């Protein structure tokens, strides 16, 4: 059991990192990673949504879609669940932490259309996990997302003070750095069979 959890953790966070290896969720990755605090806030929101979405969509798949032979409604059903959850997170954030809400701005509802969340849910189904494993994989995938975001935010904060050629300033140098970090993460391939 512990083995499975560790494998799941390593695979979701390092080997198959959602952002850097699977290339899901690039939009918030580039949009929110200017400062470490906003990146962390976004990451926590995503962990929360991914965890609950994984659990709820797994139950949806198992008890409703399979029962009525409606597997083809997987995509739209999952999106319905994810959209509701993100709306909930938005409401909670607006009430509890107004500054984080303002800092995340439009990227908060973007979690809905973000392929990372839907990706996590679909991968759970693909890999044939049971409920607990799905939930854990969802949480770890969120952690991996947060790791990628915070790492990149740190790099970007340093890039502000670095001597970058004029034509590379802003997005170009960010994208190049992102690809280098992604290359580094590809080094983890084959760690787990």
């Amino acid at each position, binding site marked *: 059991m512990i083995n499975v959890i560790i494998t799941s953790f390593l695979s979701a966070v390092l080997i198959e990192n959602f952002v850097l290896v699977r290339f899901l969720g690039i939009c918030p990755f580039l949009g929110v990673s200017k400062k470490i605090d906003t990146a962390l806030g976004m990451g926590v929101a995503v962990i929360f949504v991914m965890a609950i979405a994984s659990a709820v969509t797994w139950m949806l798949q198992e008890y409703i879609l399979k029962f009525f032979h409606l597997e083809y*409604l997987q995509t739209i059903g999952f999106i319905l669940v994810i959209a509701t959850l993100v709306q909930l997170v938005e409401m909670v954030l607006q009430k509890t932490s107004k500054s984080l809400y303002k800092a995340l701005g439009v990227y908060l509802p973007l979690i809905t259309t973000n392929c990372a969340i839907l990706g996590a849910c679909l991968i759970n189904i693909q890999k044939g996990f049971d409920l607990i494993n799905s939930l854990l994989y969802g949480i770890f995938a969120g952690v991996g997302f947060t790791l990628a975001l915070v790492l990149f935010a740190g790099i970007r904060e340093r890039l502000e003070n670095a001597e970058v050629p004029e034509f590379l300033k802003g997005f170009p140098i960010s994208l190049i750095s992102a690809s280098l970090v992604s290359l580094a993460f590809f080094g983890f391939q084959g760690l787990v069979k």
Partner: protein
Amino acid sequence: MIDIIIAASVLGIMGIIFGIGLSIAAKVFAVEVDERVAEIRKVLSGANCGMCGCVSCDAYAEAVALKKFKVNACVVGGNIVANAIGNIMGVKADEVKEVTARVLCNGVCSVTNDKFLYSGVKTCLAEAQIYNGRKSCSYACLGNGDCVKVCDFDAIYIKDGIAMVNEKNCRACGKCVATCPKKIIVLEPKDNKVTVICSSKDKGPITKKNCSVGCIGCTLCVKKCPSNAINMDGHLAIIDYEKCTNCGECVTVCPTKAIVFYA
């Protein structure tokens, strides 16, 4: 057929359940919004010029409603907006000092001469980079209309080669002031009708050679002013609007007609 109905109803019922859940959550996590912020924002112009001291019209509306900021800070809106905001907040609005933009150059084509023929990009910004423009006076208005392009209120126009302000339309948003590369547009109180319409800090003989209506720094106006409102900044006369009484003595005594009366 039955499959379609099942599929539709499954999705539909899920949607309804989630919708009800969200509306309950909306009530639980409701955020207090002060209505007055929206009401005040409706009265403001939305130009986001920053003259009030806040970063945007939204920020000003919030500042007035929630932090008791003064209601007469919007210069663009003037007294009408100040009174409207005063009504919403339930306080009496003080007078807004009406301000207007003025172009401090009267160098029309007939009274000035050119240093060279300029055939470059026809914008003030570009021309000002080349030895301050084609006019002999380095403080002159070049009349290429950068200020006209940036005005949202149709309050500035080019006539006889220089920019002129239509004070009725001017809302003092400050965009032309910021755009002019020679920095010769300034904001002055509308009530003050007398202006030194020259920005030339050159010595008298040089100014006279460049433009026949420029300020030559003779200081006759300084001596004549009954309220001591005029001072010299080098060879340019400057009027202190706190002291000026619009008497017009300086206008009559100026030998080059560099001080004018704005009717």
